[in-house]
């Protein structure tokens, strides 16, 4: 990625971020806010109140045409044809060899599938899907839509203050949604697509809004006492604490889903059908026959281990790699994700990381590092 700011694209809210004093950095080809008041304060605010994230760099796509869910199943392991209207599924876009090309959210809107993919990979994803999907399936890139994420224990209380109406009389309001449900709404006659989802481990919403209205919505939200704008820095530390893998770091085309510890992304039906890209190679590892696995690490002491640091054995041989690492503001200690040999992947196993010639003791930890705080539908 170039850090020549002239080549960077601007988000619809770029000026607004700068006006709030954000420090802007290049990310996924865009100039994006990395922090406003500071990563630690923003992180803690999101865990205790509600944070507003501009994630308009992410790709919003509509997939339509007869049998589009079945068609998308050819390149994902998710049970998308069984996804009910208004429901969301997290799944993976798989290459023909089973390597992970992206992770994505798929919503059945009742009329089509709405996909949210990563910003850095969206153009490659679109090209791949267009090449793989039958001609009668239409893929629209919603380039005129912005995306905001409102995350935190007070996200519901805050959103309820905005007088967002159901799209049709009698339909639900946003706070009626449970985790991984979505629907259409109106805010001052502006159409919003709202999902109860996110990537921080907290309750919250992701709001798709026409780009020309995103600033008004961001202002209305941040005017609420519960809500502050949050940058990419805290987004990363929040998702790390929540044990959520980040594409391009914890997942790459060289990694298969079982290695990435994403077994939950396969449904039983799709495993039995075995009819997705790379299925033979991917399912040969299921559920625990891969040689390596992504695990969580608690790091001894105060010094974080960082992405790219080696996992070593007692003789100093490299046997794995750290894929994400940082300091947990909530736990006040360093945590990480790493690829380690399967036989060293059990919780409690001692692991050594070598970083700048220094050996740092770690222990395999359960993920998430903090319990998720989702607004799940009660089980009957």
């Amino acid at each position, binding site marked *: 990625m170039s850090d020549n700011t002239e080549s960077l694209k601007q988000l619809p809210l770029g000026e607004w971020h700068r006006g709030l004093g954000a420090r802007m950095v290049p990310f996924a080809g865009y100039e994006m806010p990395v922090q406003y008041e500071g*990563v630690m*304060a923003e992180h803690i605010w999101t865990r205790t109140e509600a944070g507003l994230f501009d994630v308009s760099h992410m790709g919003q796509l509509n997939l339509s045409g007869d049998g589009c869910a079945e068609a998308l199943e050819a390149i994902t392991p998710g049970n998308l044809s069984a996804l009910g209207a208004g429901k969301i599924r997290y799944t993976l876009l798989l290459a023909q060899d089973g390597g992970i090309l992206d992770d994505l959210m798929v919503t059945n809107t009742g009329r089509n599938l709405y996909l949210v993919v990563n910003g850095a990979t969206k153009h490659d994803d679109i090209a791949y899907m267009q090449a793989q999907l039958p001609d009668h399936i239409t893929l629209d890139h919603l380039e005129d839509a912005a995306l905001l994420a409102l995350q935190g224990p007070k996200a519901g209380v805050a959103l309820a203050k905005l007088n967002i109406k159901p799209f049709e009389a009698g339909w639900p309001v946003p706070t009626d949604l449970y985790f991984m449900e979505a629907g259409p709404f109106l805010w001052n006659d502006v159409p919003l697509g709202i999902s109860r989802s996110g990537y921080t481990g907290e309750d919250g919403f992701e709001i798709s809004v026409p780009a020309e209205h995103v600033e008004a919505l961001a202002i209305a939200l941040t005017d609420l006492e519960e809500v502050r704008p949050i940058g990419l*820095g805290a987004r990363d*530390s929040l998702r790390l604490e929540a044990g959520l893998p980040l594409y391009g770091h914890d997942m790459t085309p060289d990694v298969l889903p079982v290695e990435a510890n994403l077994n939950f992304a396969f449904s039983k039906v799709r495993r039995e059908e075995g009819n997705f890209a790379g299925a033979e190679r991917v399912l040969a590892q299921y559920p625990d026959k891969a040689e390596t696995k992504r695990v969580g690490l608690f790091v001894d002491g*105060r010094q*974080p281990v*960082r992405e790219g640091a080696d996992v070593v054995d007692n003789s100093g041989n490299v046997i794995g790699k750290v894929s994400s690492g940082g300091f947990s503001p909530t736990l006040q200690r*360093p945590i990480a994700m790493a690829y380690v040999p399967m036989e060293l992947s059990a919780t409690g196993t001692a692991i050594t990381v070598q970083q700048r010639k220094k050996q740092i003791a770690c222990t395999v930890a359960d993920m998430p590092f903090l319990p998720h705080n989702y607004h799940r539908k009660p089980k009957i």
Partner: protein
Amino acid sequence: MSRYFTEEHEWVDVEGDTATIGITEYAQEQLGDIVFVETPEVGATLEQGDDAAVVESVKAASDVYAAVSGEVIEVNEALEEEPALVNSSAEEDGWFYRATLSDKDELSDLMDEKAYKAFIENL
């Protein structure tokens, strides 16, 4: 006592043959919340430009280079318990280490406060 600055945003206080070294207010502001400082070993001999310390924020690690050559004679042990001292008092209580100066001529490569202020204004 004279204070010098480097383009890598370190400050160097010189008193006789001894230098006290830390990172500048500008540097701590850029780094954000500092969660760990790896100081050099007492007794280590550093050449100007060597890796001397590592400063870790929530998100990233940054190297601190030896601003001057010399032997490390003391490190700021308070940073072990309270790395955020670098945020709250970068140019005083948040100092990193003291070293003997083995080559005073190196100081002529460094900036004075006025030159450093002009330098950061142009960043």
